């Protein structure tokens, strides 16, 4: 049976990528999937490299029952582009990031998912697009998360 996946969709751009689980922290993947669909505004990181940053994803159905320090951690500068991780997540709020391009920060985070290889060029394209358009032009973009099986 195929692994479940979720889709990240940027409605204003009519672009999307598919995201599947990786070999660690499956608990986080299942928890996130359980709480979809969700929507927030798109931002990017501004220090140490480029990631797309989703800072307030409402997890309506199940409150967070894990803590970052207990999860398996990876160093962000070492893991591949397209990999996703949770950061400062608690209660009913998830903070999710995806590494888009080079990152110099040697800090460890709980990774749990990754954009599928076929869609990674799309992530890179939208990531750099957001870097310019969010930070300089102040245009607003939303990001949506939906289970692939629900599309």
């Amino acid at each position, binding site marked *: 049976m195929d692994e479940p996946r979720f889709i990240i969709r940027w409605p204003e751009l009519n672009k999307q990528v598919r995201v599947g689980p990786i070999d660690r922290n499956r608990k986080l993947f299942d928890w996130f999937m359980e709480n979809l669909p969700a929507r927030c505004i798109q931002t990017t990181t501004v220090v140490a490299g480029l990631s797309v940053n989703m800072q307030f994803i409402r997890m309506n159905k199940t409150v967070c029952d894990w803590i970052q320090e207990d999860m398996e951690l990876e160093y962000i500068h070492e893991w591949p582009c397209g990999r996703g991780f949770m950061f400062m997540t*608690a209660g009913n*709020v998830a903070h999710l990031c995806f590494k888009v391009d080079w990152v110099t920060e040697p800090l460890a985070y709980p990774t749990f998912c990754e954009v599928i290889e076929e869609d990674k060029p799309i992530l890179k394209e939208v990531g750099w697009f957001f870097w310019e358009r969010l*930070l300089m032009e102040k245009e607003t973009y939303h990001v949506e998360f939906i289970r692939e099986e629900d599309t």
Partner: protein
Amino acid sequence: MAENWKMLQQEIDAASERAVEECPDDMLRVFEYDIVRTGAGTGRLMMGPWWEGATSTRYLGSYYIFNIVKVAQDMNISAEQIRQLVNLMLPTALGTVELCDISDYARFTRQTIDCINEEIDDREDMLSLLNSLWFYGSAANAWCQYRMKWGIGLSFKVNHRDDLIYMGSRANEAFERWDHEKKEEN
């Protein structure tokens, strides 16, 4: 007198829903239109309210409320301990948020503290209200980051290694000049 906490929670949740779609008015006023009504901004400069406002917004939500909600996942943390943490951690950052005129977030936080001190005794009710504030605070943090005038940074690019070597090579000139300048007597 604290407001009814459930009414406050409904108001925060409604503001949060709007913040998923559009920038909250208080952040738009400070970061886009440069209007601060409190007198903050030394020399009438906006740089202070932008930086301090965004930083204190992040501290209030992502460092303080977040950590209270997180530590309360431990069921041994009592309602009284949560109340102590709220009173210990939130007021200082809140003062700066208020000063920088991020007014809605400041009011929500002030009223949450009042409710926790005067009205709520149940642990889960406290966490429910703090969770609502945590979501709004996360949205506020994202909008601050988004609205910050990052274009200013283009005037101050991070120096490359070669730039630093060149700057270092010229450092002696400054000392040499100093050595040849007439020194004022004390």
